[in-house]
């Protein structure tokens, strides 16, 4: 058995085989020589399982997490948009656009997950008899046990919209590694993420400009790890990360400042951060029934 030959044959049909297996292309080329022949089949088996075998399960799980956020957001916006007098008339078209786009995302994710052979996530209490799909108010408690009044106070509605959008983005970011095995889905997830980022920017800008109480004066992007209110700090912990690919962004040059380096607010705002599944689920747990 010639291991190098196998790899080179695969490379002909899949030029990215080395990248899928590992970033260390040269190490892999020398792989066959360094592994005992008896161990080789097992080593190969685990390597290829890692690269190709994981496709469905992890991809479906990742998309289902995205779908869970889309249901939550869609239901939240639909309820808000249909609450007379809550959203200012000038902002209402924007929130209606978001509602429609979240619905398109739900349809898209349902279709994609089904095509991959997976079972799409359904919110709690989702039944055809009680629900006008995908609107599932019976799945959520947006007051978080009476803590918030999002549907009677516009300021609160916007604050929760902001944390749902930003957290939804962090959730998607965190799932990107799970999608690397499927380039087509990965690209669609990137494109979905871009739409969500536009939503987040809109909500944050409305908070900045509307005649409401937004003491931290939010920008459309997340500066450092600043939350809209102190109790919501957990939603932004880690957003002030300054290291990417072993590069410290606060050391990058910026001639427009006296010290010649990038201010931290920009160094951190220039990157959105990935949050893992456990973390994002814990952040929305209080809003689910």
């Amino acid at each position, binding site marked *: 058995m010639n291991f190098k030959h196998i790899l080179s044959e695969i490379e002909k049909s899949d030029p990215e085989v080395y*990248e899928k297996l590992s970033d260390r292309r040269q190490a892999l080329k020398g792989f066959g020589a360094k592994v005992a022949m008896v161990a080789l089949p097992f080593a190969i088996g685990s390597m290829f399982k890692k690269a190709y075998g994981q496709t469905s399960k992890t991809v479906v799980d990742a998309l289902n997490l995205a779908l869970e956020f889309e249901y939550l957001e869609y239901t939240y916006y639909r309820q808000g948009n249909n609450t007379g007098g809550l959203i200012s008339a000038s902002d209402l078209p924007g929130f209606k656009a978001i509602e429609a786009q979240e619905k398109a995302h739900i349809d898209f994710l349902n279709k994609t997950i089904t095509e991959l052979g997976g079972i799409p996530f359904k919110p709690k209490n989702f039944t055809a008899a009680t629900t006008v799909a995908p609107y599932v108010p019976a799945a959520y408690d947006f007051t978080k046990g009476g803590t918030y009044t999002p549907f009677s106070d516009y300021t609160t509605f916007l604050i929760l919209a902001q944390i749902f959008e930003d957290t939804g983005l962090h959730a998607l970011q965190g799932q990107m590694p799970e999608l690397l095995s499927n380039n087509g889905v990965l690209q669609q997830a990137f494109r*979905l993420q871009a739409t969500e980022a536009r939503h987040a920017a809109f909500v944050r800008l409305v908070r900045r400009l509307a005649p409401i109480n937004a003491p931290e004066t939010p920008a459309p992007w997340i500066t450092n790890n600043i939350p809209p209110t102190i109790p919501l700090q957990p939603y932004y912990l880690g957003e002030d990360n300054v290291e990417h690919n072993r590069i410290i962004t606060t050391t990058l040059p910026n001639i427009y400042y006296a010290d010649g380096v990038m201010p931290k607010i920009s160094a951190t705002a220039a990157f959105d951060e990935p949050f893992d599944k456990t973390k994002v689920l814990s952040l929305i747990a209080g809003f689910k029934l």
Partner: protein
Amino acid sequence: MKKNNTPAQVDETEIAGNPSRRRFFQLAGGIAGAGMLVASCRRTPPSTTYVGAGDIGLLNYLYILKQVTVAMYTQAIATPYYSITLSETELQIDLRDQELVHREFLKKLLGRDAVKEITTNLSLITFADKKSFLTHASILEDLSVGAMNGAIQVMSSTDYMLTLSKICSVDARHAGYIREVWKHNTFADGTILDANGLDKAIAPSLGFATLENYIETKFDISKLPTF
């Protein structure tokens, strides 16, 4: 930290607005090119800058794009459009700084493979005119998003892909914001999204063609991966 945004302190890439310097660079390029014609066997014209192949080419493409956006916001801050608000001024500085983070980050990531400083050409933009500036800012921010979504499709390094994910979503925030400055509630409309509510993915060759409207330097993108 004092913010200093006087017009005198323009960045090294912002020489396009100065005709005499631009002329100088054109002449210098011609002379340098004549020498290289003898020395080089490359098929492409010697006065072009080679962006590289594979992931290097893709990162250079995005690096060039970031050089353009930094130049644009720097000029916009120096010569703001009529009727600009305080909030818009503040956020333009944020935009310039974040684009600068992206530019310098990509430069560092590329290391010795980074293309040299380029000459931008922003003559399409009338900075004093709000509509002109926002139209082009919107084109370039939407392009940033689409360029990254497109680049990952032909990228090899998963490390780079995951990094671009974190940058791309911030560019989408920028893109949404710029559209809002022009017209409220247009952050993501049907001109950008498809029926699934997904933003664009632009093929690198196509994205580069748009970018060329804003740069003076000629590039050899013959090895730039595209689809």
